[in-house]
Structures are given as structure tokens and as C-alpha cells.
């Protein structure tokens, strides 16, 4: 509805130009990332770049795993950390979200506000103490340390988003189940969860993406063996001699799975997260 009003604000030609500009500016850099990842160093270092057919190659993708030390290991670490973080965040967060949404706890509002507040923390504040703790525990450069720390920002998000979805479930259904004889745990397990599969999955995807993309804590808490993909890529890009195509290939590999997930689940993500922050 607002669209029609906008339509008369400015002429249609301006809208078309605006949309075109928007797409070009947004997609352009990403398109270049993909294109140049398939181009040879020679082609990229001539002025202007050589776009002839001979310039295109898959060599960057095959070569980057050798050139970028431990890229494969980086991906594996990223995957495992993201997976476990998501699993724990959902396993612990879903019941908590349900409790806050439906189980009428006194003080729920206060707890909710605190959870919301945690989202506002800059990571640096907890990074230093956590680094010291992990050092004492001998957990520096372990995946477990990352998983634990990643929970700190994933758990609140998961709780917040899922709470929004659980609130939307009609109370009557849960009451009917209670009258039928279900315990609270059974209501959650047999009624609430089965009808929430889509939001659960989408929230998991969201947490996975946030974990996969994370850099700061990975930088601080890992050294050699637990390095995640973003870390490997940043180190690779910081080397003196760079094969640009390889650099782009590494970046492309890092973002491909996340982009795929985001596109697949875009509706849920946009709905849950954006609207959860815009309440009312």
C-alpha cells in the first residue's frame, strides 16, 4: 500500500534508475569477487584486465588449498564450531524461550530485558576476561573455547527469536493438551515443538551463519589448531605475495555456504529477526 504512495512521490523513471543503481552497487562487488576468482593472475594484473576466454581457470580454487596454509582445516573448524554452537543454542534456548513465552514466570520481563541487553555488548568487554580464563583453563586454541564463547551471543538471539514464535501459538492448543493430561514437558515436546519446526530450523540457520562469520573471538582465542576459516582467510590476505584470484577463491568458498543458507531461508530470517527487533 505504501508503494502506491511512493509511486506518486517520484516519477517511475527515477524508481527504475534507483532500483538499477541499488542492484548494481550491491551485487557489483560480489559479482566481481566471483568473476575474479576464476581469473588468472596474469589476466588480473594487466591494465585493463584481460577478459578473454583464456584468462578463465579453475586453478585458483585448486591452488588455494595449498597456498593458504590450513584452509581446509579452517573450514572444518568453522563447520564444527558453528554446528555445535547452533545445536547447543537451540537445545538450551528453545526450552528457555518457551518458559519465557508461556510459562508465566514472575520476573520474566526483567530476564527478557537482560537477554536483550546482552545483544548490545561489544565483544571486547568480555573478550579480555574470557581470554584470561581460557588461558588458565588451558583452553586457548581449542574449538571448545570458541563454542562456549559463541554461545554468549547466539543463545540470547535464539531465545529472543524463538520466544516471538512461541508467543504466536494459540493458548487454546496448550490448554487442550493440559486437559488431555499432558505434563508441561509433554506439551512442549509433543505439541509446541512439532508445530515450530520451521522457525526452529530458521533460527538454527541464523545462529549457524553468525557463528560461521565470526572473526574477533576466533582471532583472540585461537592460534594454530583451532583456526577458523575467517582467520585463515585474513592471514592469507595479509601475505606479501598474493595471487588475487586465489584470495577471491578463498573468500568465495567462505561465503558460499552461508549465502546459500541465507537465500534458502530468507523469508524466515527476514521475518523473525527484523520484525523481532521492530516489535509493535
Amino acid at each position: 500500500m505504501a508503494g502506491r504512495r511512493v509511486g506518486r512521490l517520484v516519477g517511475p523513471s527515477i524508481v527504475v534508475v534507483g532500483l538499477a543503481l541499488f542492484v548494481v552497487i550491491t551485487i557489483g562487488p560480489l559479482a566481481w569477487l566471483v568473476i575474479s576468482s576464476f581469473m588468472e593472475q596474469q589476466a588480473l594484473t594487466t591494465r585493463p584486465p584481460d577478459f578473454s576466454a583464456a584468462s578463465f581457470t579453475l586453478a585458483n580454487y585448486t591452488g588455494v588449498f595449498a597456498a593458504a596454509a590450513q584452509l581446509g582445516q579452517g573450514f572444518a573448524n568453522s563447520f564444527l564450531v558453528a554446528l555445535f554452537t547452533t545445536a547447543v543454542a537451540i537445545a538450551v534456548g528453545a526450552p528457555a524461550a518457551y518458559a519465557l513465552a508461556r510459562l508465566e514466570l514472575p520476573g520474566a520481563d526483567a530476564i527478557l530485558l537482560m537477554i536483550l541487553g546482552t545483544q548490545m555488548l561489544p565483544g571486547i568487554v568480555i573478550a579480555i576476561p574470557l581470554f584470561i580464563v581460557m588461558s588458565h583453563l588451558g583452553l586457548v586454541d581449542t574449538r571448545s573455547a570458541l563454542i562456549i564463547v559463541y554461545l554468549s551471543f547466539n543463545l540470547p538471539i535464539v531465545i529472543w527469536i524463538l520466544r516471538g514464535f512461541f508467543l504466536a501459538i494459540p493458548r487454546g492448543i496448550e490448554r487442550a493438551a493440559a486437559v488431555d493430561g499432558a505434563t508441561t514437558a509433554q506439551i512442549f515436546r509433543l505439541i509446541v515443538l512439532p508445530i515450530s519446526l520451521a522457525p526452529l530450523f530458521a533460527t538454527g540457520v541464523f545462529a549457524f551463519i553468525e557463528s560461521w562469520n565470526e572473526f574477533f573471538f576466533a582471532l583472540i582465542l585461537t592460534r594454530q589448531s583451532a583456526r577458523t576459516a575467517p582467520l585463515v582467510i585474513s592471514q592469507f590476505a595479509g601475505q606479501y605475495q598474493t595471487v588475487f584470484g586465489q584470495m577471491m577463491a578463498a573468500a568465495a568458498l567462505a561465503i558460499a555456504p552461508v549465502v546459500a543458507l541465507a537465500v534458502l531461508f530468507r523469508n524466515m530470517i527476514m521475518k523473525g529477526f527484523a520484525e523481532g527487533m521492530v516489535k509493535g
Partner: protein
Amino acid sequence: MGTLEQRRRRAGYAALAPALLILVLILAYPIVDSMLLSLQDLRAAGGTFEGRFIGLSNYGALLEDRTFGAALSATAYFTAIEVVVVVLLALGVALLLVHPFGRFGIFRIVLLLPWAIAPVANAVLWKWILHANYGILNVLLLEVGLIDRNVVWLGTARMALHTVLAVDIWKSVPFIAILLLAGLSKVPPVLYRAARLDGANAWEQFLHITLPQLRPTIAVAVILQTLWSLRIFDLIFVLTKGGPADGTVFLNFLAYRTTFNFLDLGYGAAIANVVFAVSFVLALGYIWLLQPGLQRAGS
């Protein structure tokens, strides 16, 4: 065993406990510890930590620290401009997408992409695009004739700051646009109809209906973007490492460098707490804005 209400409440505490425990351990404890750390002169040397209590000296030192002052003003400048530009551009994008021409799903996919890509990957990409000799930006600008020789985008402090600003704006606009889109979709269409009957034209409708209705969403966008601007890190680390000449040392990065490069943990914690304090005040504002929504959602 109790009534239904009693049992549900008990189950609720049990369900909430693990999450709260984790959050207290991983968040509450470190926050408190950070305060304590900042009151110490704590350095890491050879794998051990040596510290002594010095009260508020770290904060006192901050007041006289030129680097800190520079970082503070750079951060303020960066944040202020980024927030204004991002929100304005995002509003424009949101309005474009709400227009009949912009209805297609493809545009919304385009919106999600910059958010989805890892900030590090983004930084690496732009490092390549901004490359002085071979970066595509210089190539295009030269071809088009807008410049006559290669620009070293990250060459001077001033240029580096603004280049980083531009890149981060590029990455941030889409998500804020998603936020604003969600807010736009909540404006009841009937308001526009009533205004039209009252004789308002399109511009007046925008001014008197769209903007006021969008105000809470815009406020949320402003606060969120501010918080995110304060946290900028990945881009700096990959593109400039704070340089040239500390021109892109923002508060967050300064805290990191002080702690993990200079190994001065107490001082670094003090800087971190300053960032925290600013974020905290903003977070309070955010929560206060959301309060009515929370209560409504709880009924």
C-alpha cells in the same frame, strides 16, 4: 504436586535455568571481571599474567592519552556519519522496494547478501577492489575518466578513514533497509486511504503518515546501527590495521591492540569499558523504546 499453574511455573524455572546459568557464566562474570581488570596494572609476559591494583589510574591515564583522544573523536566522527548516511540510504532503498516496481523477491535476496557474507570475506574483497594498481575500482574510474591516475585509497589517514566508512556503509545499508521494510509493512493502509480522502497528496502522505508511523522503527535502526558502528573491527584489521598513522584506530580496535599487541591488559580493559559504557547507555535507550512492544507481546 500442585495445580496446573504451579507445575508450569516449576517447569519454567527448570527450563530457563541452564540458559541463565550459561549466560551468567559467559557474560555476567566477564563483565564484572572486566571492571576489576581495569582497576589493575596487568600485563602478560611470557605466558603469565602479572598484575597489581592501581585503582582508577588507568582511567586517569586515558584522559591524557592522545591516542585515546584521537580514537575517541575518530570513532565519534565515524559513527555519526555512518549512522546518518546508512539510515537515509536504507530508507531510500526500503521505499524503492515497497514501490510496485520493487516488489520482486529478487530484490530482497539482493538485500540479504551483504549481511550474509562474513565481514572478513567482505574486507578481503574490498582489499582487492581498492588495490591501488590492479583494483577494479581504479580501473573503472580510469576508464571512465573520473581520475587520471591510480588513487591509493588507503594511503593517507583521512582517505583511509573515509574509504573504510564507505565500505562499511555498503555492507550496513541492506540490513537496515530490511528493518525499515518491516516497519513500512506495519503501517496500516487504511491511514493512507483516510488521508487521501482528506485531500493529501503523495508527498504530504509521506510526511504526515509514513514518517511518523516509521519513527519507532527509525529510532531502532539508529540505535542498532550506532552500536554496530562502535564495534567495527574486521574491516580495520584486514584493510588498515589501524593505519596509516593510526588514522583508522577506532576505540574498539584500540582496546584490542592495547590488550593483545601491547599486552597491557589492565589499560585495554579500561578502554573496553569505555566502549561498553557508551553501548550500555545506548542499549538502555533501545530497551526503553521497545518497552511498550514487550508488554503488548506478553499479554
